[in-house]
Structures are given as structure tokens and as C-alpha cells.
């Protein structure tokens, strides 16, 4: 199994979720994160003080999938999360060795 982690722009969540559902991925976990990268932040001014805001709000999506879905998953995310503008985010794929569904105790691919 793999865990695909994608950092995306927040307003793309619903689209990505739908695309994943279409290819048969029915579970995912989302975290609000702050991203630092090439995309430039903005400057905020509070009375006398200026702050360069370099961390931008992003969403991190984590999807555990069977190995064979990896390409499809990457493709689904890439296609829907892309705006073509800097800051669209990244996808990382890492291995996972075991998975368990807490409710039933089902294991590995059955648990996804």
C-alpha cells in the first residue's frame, strides 16, 4: 500500500475529493497546513509594523491506497488541483506497511 500526500490550494478540496471518489478512493484525511515555497506571500501592515507573511494556507490530503491505484490517484489529484499558477502544491508518495480498520480490525487493503 502507498500513502499519497498532496499539498493543495484550499479551494480545490471539493474537486479533488470528487475526482478521487470517481477512481474508487473512498476515504481520505485532510489537514489544514501552512506552506512555504516559491509562491510569494503578501505583506500585512498593523499600524506601524509590517509583517511579511511567507506561510500560506494550504490543505494537506492524505490517501492510503492499494499500490495499483497509485498512478491513477496522482493523476486525479494533479488534474483537478492544478490552476497552473505558482503554489499549486506537491504530491508525495510513500510506502505503508500495514493498515487496520479500527472498527472491524480488518487488515491492510481491506482496511482502506
Amino acid at each position: 500500500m502507498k500513502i499519497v500526500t498532496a499539498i493543495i490550494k484550499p479551494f480545490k478540496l471539493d474537486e479533488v475529493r470528487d475526482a478521487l471518489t470517481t477512481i474508487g478512493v473512498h476515504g481520505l484525511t485532510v489537514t489544514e497546513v501552512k506552506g512555504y515555497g516559491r509562491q510569494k506571500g503578501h505583506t500585512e501592515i498593523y499600524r506601524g509594523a509590517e509583517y511579511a507573511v511567507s506561510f500560506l494556507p494550504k490543505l494537506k490530503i492524505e490517501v492510503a491506497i492499494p499500490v495499483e491505484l497509485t498512478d491513477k490517484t496522482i493523476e486525479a489529484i494533479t488534474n483537478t488541483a492544478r490552476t497552473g499558477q505558482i503554489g499549486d502544491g506537491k504530491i508525495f508518495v510513500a510506502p505503508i506497511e500495514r493498515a487496520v480498520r479500527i472498527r472491524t480490525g480488518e487488515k491492510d487493503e481491506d482496511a482502506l
Partner: protein
Amino acid sequence: MSLRLQRSFSRTCVFAGTSLFALGAAPAFAGNAPVPNPGDTAWLLISSALVLMMSIPGLALFYGGLVRTKNMASILTQTFAIVALVGVLWTLYGYSLAFGDGGSLNAYIGGLGKAFLKGVGVDATAPTFTPGHVVPELAYFVFQMTFAMITPALIIGAFAERMKFSAVFAFITAWVTLIYFPIAHWVWAVADPNVIVDAATELAAATTDAAKQAAQAKIDAATASVGWIAGGLAPWMKGVGALDFAGGTVVHINAGIAGLAGALIVGKRIGYGKEALPPHSLTLSMVGASLLWVGWFGFNAGSNLEANGTTALAFVNTMVATAGAALSWLVTEWAVKGKPSLLGLISGAVAGLVAVTPASGFAGPIGSLVLGFVVSPICLFFVSKVKNTFGYDDALDVFGVHCIGGVTGALATGILVSPDLGGVGITDYTAIGENYAGKYEMLAQMIAQATAVGATLLYSGIGSAILYKVVDLVIGLRPAPDQEREGLDISDHGERAYNL
């Protein structure tokens, strides 16, 4: 603020000969100028503070809680800036345009005679609705200022989350000048009751024909020199002025239709109908609604200008209509959608406040309670069914609650004022003491009410549309899509409402 003066004025010409001679014992006010009572002054000033509180923080929070986090600072800034902007414009020329003497154009606009508060010193007084009573004119000036502040602030809810701050700023400057000040004049520029009573007394005491004619001429002059809606001056109104105690037409219908025009012209928010656009803080909206309720006593009961029994009536009406409407929205939603929601509850309260505004000094408490019960389902129907059917993005339901609630209230006022329904009837300053209540005629009154409603809808609707278009041409209404997505807080103001 009441229109109840107008109705009987032009009739005075007709009935004067018969009814006015009963007035011999009435006090003559000419000569010894009345002095403001500290209780009335205190009431009018605290009412002004309450109405300011309605705008900031009341309305700002009510609206702000309903937008997404990324547009919170935008809503707050727009509301607060409008308050400041209109405060300045009102002082410079707004008060004069609305409540000055417009000379030959007085039916339509008040002129510039009081611009820069010329002649409005610490000792100047303004009449109330009780002959022989006055308040400091500065208190009246500032009370009315707070109305001019909140009305344009109401509009912004309709196009929330998607209009540039610069555009809002420009639009509101034009709007208060060209739409609000005139309409306020049409509806609220009324005659000084003291003048009427004095002239009526003179008429009653007149023994020669010349004296009678002179006195009658004074009455005629006073009753003619008013806003056209207030005076029932349109041909079909036949002298029956519309009743709008605290601003159903001038404030709510006016702002509501201007909001709808804005929502239509600026277009829907990105994601509208697709993404979830949930309120970022119902907590704040609830606080806002509560402060609106509390402040609205200043709005409605303050509009009586004095602190007397009618003030208590307007206060009670405001209370019961609001309680009734909040409960009614809650129960309707519970029945129809299965769950009673906080947002529904507070929307109902606001709908009740809006509806009772024109009626507050005219209806009886039970009439107001019924009005409250009735207005909520109507508004609920508009904000859910009608809006969804037509698909306009009236973001915070300015049209659905303020315009529709305002129309409901304005028309209901024509009915609930009826003494048969517990209302106070029509005041006739020329025949105080006489039983005038019987003079209320529902049809005539409803024509007047409908005229006020229609004139406001048309003038404000069309006028606002033109202003939006002009602003769009000159500086553009809408931010770039990316900016809208990032939120107006960052793009317009360079700051965020929260850094938790």
C-alpha cells in the same frame, strides 16, 4: 420619525371652518419659545447612541459572522468606514439636503441652507410631534445622522465578499447623496406642529374674514412645504401622506432594493451554488442580532423624539413584534426543515424589527405581535425559495429580509394604525381634543403606503443600478478572481481578521 403629521394637513383647508373653533382653549405657542425637557433630550441622545451601536458593532457583527473568515475584515471595514464617511457627509451637506428648506423644490429636496450646520447652534431647537415640545436641534441632527449611517451599511450585505473596497466607498458616497438624502426628505420633511397649532388657534380666534384667510394661509403654507410623500402631494394621494414611523421605506426598502440591484449587477460570488459558503461565526451574528434588537429601541422609540407614552408604545411594539417574528421563524423552520436553527431565529428577529419599524408608533401591541408572526414566513419564503429559484446571490439576504420585511411592514402600517385594530389612528393637529380617530380610511391610507413603497422601489432600484454601472465603468466593481478567492481582507486591506 413620523409621518403622522401630514395626513390631516391639507384637509384642514376643508374642515377648518367647522372643526377648528373648538380650539379656543388650546395654548398658543407663538411668542414664548418652548424649552427642551432634559428627559426628552436625554432620551433622544441615548437613542442616537443606540442607533450608532446598531451599525457598529451590531450590523457589522451580524453581517460579519455570516461571511467567510477571509472576508471578515472586509465587512467590518466597509461598515465602519461607511459610518465615518456618512457622518462627515451628513455634517457637510446631508442634513441640509434631507431636512433643510428646499424652497420651491422643497417637495423633492431640502437645499443647502443648513450645510456645514449653518444656524444650528447650541440653542437651536427642533419640534417634536407634541405641540409645545421641542428638542435641541443638534440632538435631532445627530439622531438623524445615525439613520443616514446605517442605511447604506445595510446595502453591503447583498454584494458581500465580492466588491472592491474602493468601489463600495465610491458607490456609497454617491448613493447617500443622490438616493438617501432625497428619499429621507420626501418622507420625513414634515411641518412644525407648533406652526399648525398656532395657526389653527389663530384661525379659531379670527373674527374677520381677512384674519381667517391669513390664518388659513399659514396652515396651507405649512402643510404644502413638506416632502411629497409626507404630504400626500401626488395627485392620486389626495393629501393623504404615507405613514412611516421610523423608516420602513426610507431605510429598509431603500437599502434592500439597492442591495438587490448591486447583487445582480456585480454577479454571484465565485463558488456560489457549488462550494459551501457557511457563516464563519454564528456566534458573532447572534451578538450582532442582539445588539440590533437592543439598539433598535433607539431607532423606533427614539423616533418619537420625546419620552412619553407613545415612546413606550413604540418600544413595546418593537419588543413584541421582534419576539413574535423570531419565534415564528424558528417554529416555521422547525416544522418545514426539521430543525430550529440559530440563524433562523436571529433572522426572524431582524425581520420582525424591520417590519415593525414603520408601524412602531402607530400600531397597538397585539397588532405588532401579529405582524411579527406574519413577516417571518414571508421573508423565509423569499430567502429560501425565491432566491434559489431566481438564482441571484443576495449574499446576506438584504433584499429578502430588509426589502421584503420593509414592504410587509409599510403596507401593514396602513392597516394596523386603525383604531379598530388597537392602533393610534391619525393625528390631526388642527383639532386636538376632538375625536379624530374616525377619520382613518383604510383605502386612502393604503394608497399612500403603496405610493411610498413604489416610489422608493423605483427611485432607489433604478438610481442605484445606474450608480453601480457608473462606478463599474470608472473604477470597476469587482476584484480579480484570485483576489476574491484569497479574500478581500488581504486583497483590499492587507490584513486578516484573525491570527489565532
